[in-house]
């Protein structure tokens, strides 16, 4: 069975869009909810638990979206910057390593 993955939605505001466009990474954006741009970084089960422990304001929306929400904006900025640096969305292992 494939490992369950839980998205962290990084909603792309103008500032973020400018950064990824300049880096030639606009293709990492998905479109959701009638026109919103989002970059989705995925966490596995263990990473999800670590994130929820590290950032107590974060919440796993188990009822509806199955996504990790309410991470502080600064934390999402760090994940976003890492995505730009690594040019890929699969960055959670590296992100958590840098937190420890």
């Amino acid at each position: 069975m494939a490992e369950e993955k839980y998205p962290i939605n990084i909603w792309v505001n103008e500032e973020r869009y400018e950064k990824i466009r300049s880096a030639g990474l606009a293709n990492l954006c998905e479109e959701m909810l009638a026109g919103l741009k989002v970059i989705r970084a995925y966490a596995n089960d263990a990473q999800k638990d670590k994130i929820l422990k590290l950032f107590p304001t974060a919440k796993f929306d188990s009822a509806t979206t199955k996504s990790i929400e309410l991470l502080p904006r600064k934390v999402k900025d760090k994940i976003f910057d890492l995505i730009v640096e690594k040019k890929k969305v699969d960055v959670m292992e590296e992100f958590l390593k840098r937190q420890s």
Partner: protein
Amino acid sequence: MSEIGHGGKEIVERILQPKEAVQKIKGLKSVPIGSQMANEVINIAYGWFSPLKGFMNKADADAVCNSMRLTDGTVWSIPIIFDMGDQEIADYGVKEGDTVLLTYQDNPLAILEVEEIWGYDIANMCKCVYGTGDPKHPGVSRTCNYKNKFLGGPITLVNRPRINPPYEPYFIPPLEMRKRFKEKGWVKVVAHQTRNVPHTGHEWLMKGAWLQAYADLPIDKPLVGVLVNAIIGEKRKGDYIDEAIILTQDELRKSGYFGDHNHMTSLTFWDMRYAGPKEAIFHAMLRTNLGVSHHMFGRDHAGVGTYYGAYDAHELLESVRDDLSITPVYSMNWLYCPHCGEVTSEGLCNHRKEWQKFSGTLIRSIVDDGVKPPRLIFRPEVFDLVMECAEKYGFGSPFVTDEYLKRRTPVFTIPPLS
């Protein structure tokens, strides 16, 4: 004409006129109370909790725990009890048979005729009401924090609360609410329970329930309304601030997504217990007293975490349906389907693989990231008002912060009794 509320009992306000109140409270021992008890005193006095006339004695609390009924057989799901510690009882010199003056914010609020002082096995109460004794459950935690004795007996309000802006238009007690429904000509009213700023998923839940309630009624004039009844009570950090909740709910009417002919916003003071199925029954009782004919119940109504199954509340409601004077409207989730290009019901759309579900939490994460959600998901008037509330009431944030908890304007004030 008398107004009949939950359990087939007449709704009677238990409120004294000021002159009589001044006389009645003379010489009474004063007992200060906290916000939960003040809310519940108001609910009893105005009839939200009809047929309760006061705080429960042991027999009623026991019957509620063991059989979800009062001793007279009326369905009741959550004990309404007044706690006090042994030491306080001794310090205030309270005895059975006494009448005491309950004060809030240092002013007289109500008199309590103490019929019984009783103790209870709180662990058992938790198990019966919440189905768990887990202290992580917020209702269990609240209940376990009760002091070890309870005072039972009727209460009478001696001083009406002064509702502070911007809440005044939304404080509509049961007897007044029923008058308003008659003035509007509504023959059916469907209640929407909320503690949220509305996104379009909520809006469509209401619209769907309105259609369900309308059913086969004639359409030549408006006969059905939605009553938004926001629960205003204890706040937790990170919740939307109360001002944003109540004003944005009403904004849906003001901005034309509904109208005066089919939508009204109101509030009930209540500290949520998150008791899931039992709280669903409780909501049905409250809204029956408000004169509502239908009540929306979604998945995991009033639940928290994973303590209750998605449809446990519906099953419990069905088990006592004949004893409730309200028709449950079971609501399916609404979601965005990019294929349809619209918000649609999961019961209608079959583009399942394309569905994009959204929740209040998800919308909040969008707002937190500095992005304005599209109007199909979150109405621009609601978004703008949330931001306005943040500045006007929330000390810069639409969400509850330590500063908000410390400095917010109280929802109501108890003025001096003159």
